[in-house]
């Protein structure tokens, strides 16, 4: 076999292995919990636009949810209640609707009387930035724009992911940061 064919085959095999290895690595990567929070622009259901980096200096709670998600319902009322409690203290809640049908999403927001900023993840662009594996997932962004942990499941009174008490404590800790 000519030498050049051997080289081409060798390079092709190595490239293929590298390609699959990269794919496995990206897919297997854990959800983000630290480092700079990936920036995004979220268009709300009302048509307004909001950029995460514009909220620098505030504590931002990013919650991924969907109307078809059962566990999301378990935390919805609590999140709204907490938002109302903290909205005047420099805390911003962002709800990102994940892979949902808009009429159902609007009905969900109405059902739980959710008033904090909410919008769909149009084109599925934001969720891969945070490498979310499902819903609900909540990410904590500090005043400096960095991530300070996450809750990869529902936040309820006795949740195994994050309890309501731990959630409140987390917000207080982040508010105390300079």
């Amino acid at each position, binding site marked *: *076999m*000519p030498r050049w*064919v051997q080289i*081409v*085959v060798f390079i*092709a095999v190595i490239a293929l292995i590298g390609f699959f290895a990269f794919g496995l690595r990206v897919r297997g990567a854990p959800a983000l919990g630290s480092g700079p929070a990936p920036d995004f622009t979220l268009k709300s259901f009302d048509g307004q636009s909001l950029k995460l980096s514009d909220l620098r200096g505030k504590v931002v709670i990013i919650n991924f949810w*969907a*109307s*078809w998600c059962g566990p999301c319902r378990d935390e919805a009322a609590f999140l709204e209640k907490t938002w109302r409690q903290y909205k005047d203290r420099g805390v911003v809640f962002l709800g990102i609707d994940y*892979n*949902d*049908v808009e009429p*159902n999403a609007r009905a969900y927001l109405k059902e739980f009387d959710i008033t904090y900023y909410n919008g*769909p993840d*149009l*084109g*599925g*662009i934001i969720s891969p930035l945070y490498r979310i594996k*499902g819903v609900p997932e909540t990410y904590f962004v500090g005043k400096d724009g960095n991530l300070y942990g996450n809750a990869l499941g529902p936040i309820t009174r006795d949740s195994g992911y994050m309890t309501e008490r731990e959630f409140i404590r987390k917000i207080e800790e982040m508010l105390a940061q300079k």
Partner: protein
Amino acid sequence: MQSKISNRKHRPERGEGSKIIFAVATIFVIALAWFAASPVGAQTPSVDDEVNRIAKTLYCPVCPNTPLDVCNTQACADWRKQIKEMLIQGKSEQQIRDYFVQQFGERVLGAPPAEGFNWIAYILPALGIVLGAVVAWLTVRQWILRRADVTSAPEAPAIPKEYADRIEKELKEY
């Protein structure tokens, strides 16, 4: 007497009414069967069939590699319902597909659109096949050439006659 007879003639005979009912029923059944079997009826797919046909070409964004028509999650049921509503609104298949791509990204498509970086997905398999064919052809050719070399290899040089005679003689003596 005559009037009695004529009256009897004009009175419908017994069973005539049931014959009319039978005839009407027969016509109705034939008309129904004709309508059911008519090509127009057979060629008009129901909205549900259309939904399934479109759903088959779209993939669940939540549970990857599962076509929307066979996916059993609540999310997929919602999306199928949405497709149905859009069809009823008069949206075309392409408009529905575009809407889903805009909402959930290109991963909902069975195959990536042939543009930009996506071309790699279309070119690589063909390139792999061509490269594999070249390698296979070169390998087979090499085998054939090697085999031809072996079969056409020169015979062992003949032993000079004097040696042959001597060997023969010694063998006889032995």
